[in-house]
């Protein structure tokens, strides 16, 4: 297989598997495990297949263009370091999958678990293989996200939700800093490509931005690797299922931070600032984590703090600016993954079989589960650094580096001393972990009778422990080649000479190891015999803790946000609108005052006295509506219609027949709409209105009047200044030139709507459809005010006069006053339908189109309702406005997609000309289908809204 394809598959397979896993049935644990396990093994096999090429010094690459304008490409590359981590992630993934299959209970939804586990695996492999820093950050955030979902797997537990939220907040916050740092790094290096960034180390370190970008990158790496002072999320993340803790929170995801530090080591390391920051954080985590681990009650708590401590050790090594320390760091990343994952699995087994992880309750389990006990003991010995196990070798390399790292007397003595102290703690908590749980007399009052788990659950741990032993005894032959390959790919030419052997002779590091072992045993014995049992609290009472700072920060953010909302916003509409209007006036006035509003140079159009009449009516109606809207709603509504009619006449007068038609039609439906709404509003009578006469009300009204007059005057002045300036050709020429040859229509406005800006129109009819459905949905839950429920007076009088009370479905005509109009509107319906279709069909060449056609049809329908009454109409015909809306959207979208069939872009128009007998030449265009869609949507949406509102009259009083 081609190597680039193999690389792509390594990242792609887990994501594809994640998608597949999500759709399996919820109890398909076996199928899920097979799927996930096979994918993990396939990734392992692909990585192994690439070994030859990588070992020969080759770097397989896979690239795809991503955002070429921004100089970004999607790039995967596998050098030695990436190869080693790929193997680690996929192999560990396979083992964890086996373990998880038996760990999850049948009640746990397996698809969610395995889907996110696979998604995590893909993201982690993506980080490891990224050849582009921005892409690396994307995968980085994906791991944070999948970690969040996995910690919150048992989301019915409070601590799972809290732990997940905290982990996400901390690591995603760090990821954000990392992105900023990476962008600075890419800007300095001139590219986000990893290889070019790695080659630009000298330029980066000399750049004035270096301190800032270093801090940002470290914030990302240290949060991810749970380093002091951001360590606090890791112990809370232990609420996750144990396979997740074993995989994400010990072996892989928390390694992403130190992986990144090692990856960028050639660029960022080598300065005093790097030494101070990285070593400082590492040393603090190493000591703090080790000491805190001694005091945990929970088995997983011990392991979490110990993970913080071991990651601190790796960070410390990376900070030492020495190639040999880097070797030790990479080596320890592997070792820690093997023994810590084993220990997590053992803790999970104990929890699973004994029902508790509480160290105070557990005792002597070795009698009940000897194999688990053996595996856990060996792994804990590796963690403590006992000779002949892998932890011993990397720890001794660490001690050796600690001796030579520091400069100056305090560091020369202090660093080795503190390293030994951490070793002492580490031995003590490892011993406590094993001794407390597995040795001594068998605990009695356990929730379950402990016994050995199924063999498959032991297998992953057994294999890992075997690896610990093999690496511990034959380091050069087992891990040697892979390690040197990885380190060589980071360091390039300056590979240090090192020897991976168990026995170096009686050296200072060996002495430190011995002190740590003996000291650790003594410490544990001392604590054991003095009965100082775990308290659950860290021994170090720091003046501040990350956890507390985090909580305080979250609370402070909430409070500040609330305070700002209270300060800057109002719940009252009127002040908001007032401010918006004033702001708009100011923003509009400033440039105008600077440029002037003088009359332009265009010749004036002579005044036509006939236009004066509608003009007078329109202006008077507008003012009248404004005055009457409070106490005489119906009058205001009629005058609003008058103003609308004036607007329509103005459109017609000034050469916009399409607008005039649409405006008149909309005027009708608006009027009906508002009339239907009137019934549900409270009575308001001028005489008994109390707040008209107060002084405050009067000042407010005066203020609003001034604002209204000023803004209206300003808009009038602006219009005048604009209208008297010569016309700008603008886009008119473009559309006029193309309307006939390319759009095939004579009516330019309609061609623009259905063809040139068809996509826009498509969006607009979608909005209309959504609004109609929203109106319908809102009205389903409508509750009228109690006093509006009763029938209106006019209706009661009509009922009394006609004597008809109940609705009679058999009646051929509605009874009462409206019998004759009912005959007329029934005759009107087919004619109105004809006019509507006529307007629709001719729209492309003459005034008309789908909008106005649809409105005319809707008006004809609504007239039936008005005259006949809703029940009478619906007894005879079912209009189903929803179907009209749906069909219309389908027609319009289908007209757009038809173009795809012809290999043209969405909504591109095309037409046919052909001759039919009797009819003559027919010209069919795809835009006609589109316009029919517009028509159907407008008919459906308009009648849906109006009919839904009309139906509210049938609400019985219980609705109140």
């Amino acid at each position, binding site marked *: 297989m081609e190597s680039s394809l193999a690389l792509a598959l390594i990242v792609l397979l887990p994501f594809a598997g994640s998608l597949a896993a999500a759709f399996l049935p919820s109890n398909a644990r076996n199928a899920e495990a097979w799927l996930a396990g096979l994918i993990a093994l396939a990734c392992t096999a692909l990585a192994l297949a690439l070994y030859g090429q990588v070992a020969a010094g080759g770097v397989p690459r896979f690239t795809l263009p991503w955002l070429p304008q921004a100089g970004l490409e999607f790039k995967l590359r596998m050098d030695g370091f990436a190869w080693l981590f790929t193997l680690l992630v996929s192999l560990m993934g396979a083992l964890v999958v086996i373990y998880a299959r038996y760990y999850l209970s049948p009640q746990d939804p397996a698809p969610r678990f395995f889907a996110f586990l696979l998604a995590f695996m893909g993201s982690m492999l993506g980080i490891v293989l990224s050849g582009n820093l921005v892409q690396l950050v994307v995968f980085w955030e994906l791991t944070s996200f999948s970690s969040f979902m996995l910690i919150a797997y048992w989301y019915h537990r409070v601590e799972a939700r809290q732990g997940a939220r905290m982990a996400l907040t901390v690591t995603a916050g760090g990821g954000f800093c990392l992105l900023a740092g990476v962008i600075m790094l890419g800007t300095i290096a001139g590219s986000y490509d990893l290889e070019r960034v790695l080659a630009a180390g000298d330029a980066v370190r000399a750049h004035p931005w270096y301190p800032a970008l270093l801090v940002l990158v470290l914030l990302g790496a240290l949060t991810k690797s749970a380093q002091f002072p951001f360590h606090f999320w890791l112990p809370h993340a232990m609420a996750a299922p144990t396979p997740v803790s074993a995989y994400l929170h010990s072996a892989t995801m928390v390694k992403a931070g130190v992986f990144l530090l090692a990856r960028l080591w050639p660029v960022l390391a080598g300065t005093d600032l790097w030494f101070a920051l990285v070593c400082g954080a590492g040393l603090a985590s190493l000591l703090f984590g080790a000491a805190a681990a001694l005091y945990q009650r929970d088995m997983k708590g011990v392991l979490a703090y110990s993970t913080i401590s071991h990651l601190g050790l790796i960070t410390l090594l990376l900070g030492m600016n020495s190639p040999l320390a880097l070797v030790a760091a990479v080596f320890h990343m592997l070792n820690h993954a093997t023994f810590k994952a084993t220990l997590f699995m053992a803790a999970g087994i104990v929890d699973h079989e004994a029902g508790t992880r509480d160290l105070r309750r557990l005792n002597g389990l070795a009698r009940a589960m000897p194999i688990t006990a053996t595996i856990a003991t060996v792994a804990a010995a590796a963690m403590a650094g006992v000779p002949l196990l892998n932890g011993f070798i990397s720890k001794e390399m660490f001690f050796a580096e600690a001796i030579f790292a520091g400069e100056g007397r305090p560091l020369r003595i202090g660093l080795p001393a503190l390293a030994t102290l951490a070793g002492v703690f580490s031995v003590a908590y490892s011993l406590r972990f094993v001794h407390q749980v597995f040795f001594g007399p068998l605990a009695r009052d356990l929730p379950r009778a402990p016994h050995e788990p199924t063999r498959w659950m032991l297998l992953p741990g057994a294999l890992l422990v075997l690896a610990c032993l093999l690496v511990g005894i034959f380091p050069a032959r087992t891990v040697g080649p892979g390690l040197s390959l990885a380190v060589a790919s980071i360091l390039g030419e300056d590979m240090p000479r090192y020897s991976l052997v168990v026995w170096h002779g009686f050296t200072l590091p060996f002495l430190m190891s011995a002190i740590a072992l003996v000291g650790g045993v003594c410490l544990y014995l001392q604590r054991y015999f003095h009965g100082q049992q775990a308290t659950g609290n860290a021994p170090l009472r720091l003046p501040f803790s990350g956890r507390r700072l985090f909580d305080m920060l979250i609370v402070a953010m909430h409070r500040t946000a609330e305070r700002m909302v209270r300060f800057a916003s109002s719940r009252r509409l009127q002040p908001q609108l007032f401010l918006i209007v004033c702001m708009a006036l100011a923003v509009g006035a400033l440039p105008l005052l600077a440029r002037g509003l003088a009359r332009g140079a265009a010749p004036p159009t002579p005044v036509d006295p006939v236009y004066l009449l509608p003009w007078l009516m329109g202006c008077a109606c507008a003012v009248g509506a404004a005055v009457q809207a409070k106490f005489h709603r119906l009058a205001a509504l009629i005058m609003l219609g008058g103003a609308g009619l004036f607007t329509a006449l103005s459109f017609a007068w000034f050469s916009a027949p399409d607008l005039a038609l649409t405006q008149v039609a909309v005027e009708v439906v608006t009027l009906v709409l508002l009339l239907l709404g009137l019934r549900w509003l*409270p009575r308001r009578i001028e005489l008994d209105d109390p707040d008209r006469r107060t002084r405050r009300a009067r000042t407010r009204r005066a203020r609003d009047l001034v604002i209204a007059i000023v803004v209206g005057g300003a808009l009038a002045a602006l219009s005048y200044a604009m209208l008297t300036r010569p016309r700008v050709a603008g886009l008119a020429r473009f559309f006029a030139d193309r309307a006939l040859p390319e759009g095939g229509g004579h009516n330019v406005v309609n061609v623009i709507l259905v063809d040139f800006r068809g996509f826009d129109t498509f969006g607009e009819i979608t909005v209309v459809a959504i609004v109609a459905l929203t109106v319908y949905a809102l009205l389903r839950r409508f509750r009228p005010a109690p006093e509006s429920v009763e029938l209106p007076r006019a209706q009661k009088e009509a009922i009394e006069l006609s004597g008809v009370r109940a609705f009679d479905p058999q009646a051929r005509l509605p009874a009462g006053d409206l019998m004759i109009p009912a005959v007329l509107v029934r005759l009107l319906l087919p004619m109105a339908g004809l006019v509507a279709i006529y307007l629709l069909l001719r729209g492309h060449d003459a005034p008309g189109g789908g909008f106005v056609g649809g409105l005319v049809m809707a008006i004809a329908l609504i007239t039936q309702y008005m005259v006949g009454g809703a029940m009478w109409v619906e007894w005879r015909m079912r209009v189903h406005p929803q179907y009209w809306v749906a069909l219309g959207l389908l027609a319009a979208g289908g007209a757009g997609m038809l173009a795809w069939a012809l290999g043209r872009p969405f909504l591109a128009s095309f037409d046919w000309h052909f001759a039919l007998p009797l009819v003559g030449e027919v010209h069919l265009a795809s835009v006609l289908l589109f316009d029919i869609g517009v028509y159907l949507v407008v008919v459906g949406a308009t009648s849906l809204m109006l009919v839904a509102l009309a139906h509210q009259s049938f609400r019985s009083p219980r609705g109140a």
Partner: protein
Amino acid sequence: MEALVSVAIGILCGSGLWLLLRPRTFQVIVGLALLSYAVNLFIFCMGRLVIGRAPIIGTDGVADPAAFADPVPQALVLTAIVIGFATTALLLVVLLAARGLTGTDHVDGRESG
């Protein structure tokens, strides 16, 4: 004519704004409708006042943009009119529902103190 149309736009806008700043929901709806007339007319006027020359290409097929009114603002306003109706309906229903829930037709859902 220019002055007449400008004054009409100003009056429509002023009346609409006055109502928009009033406390009763019905006033706000009517105000919005008036304001949308003003704005639609204003945008339409971007193409200047042209009389008797609708943007429809004659049968000769000669399309001279100087010979007829600007079609672009017309196309913009046409959809605005229909959308305006839809949003008016939405606003009306929201306000009616608020009146049903809160028992008042004040825009804030409670009488100002």
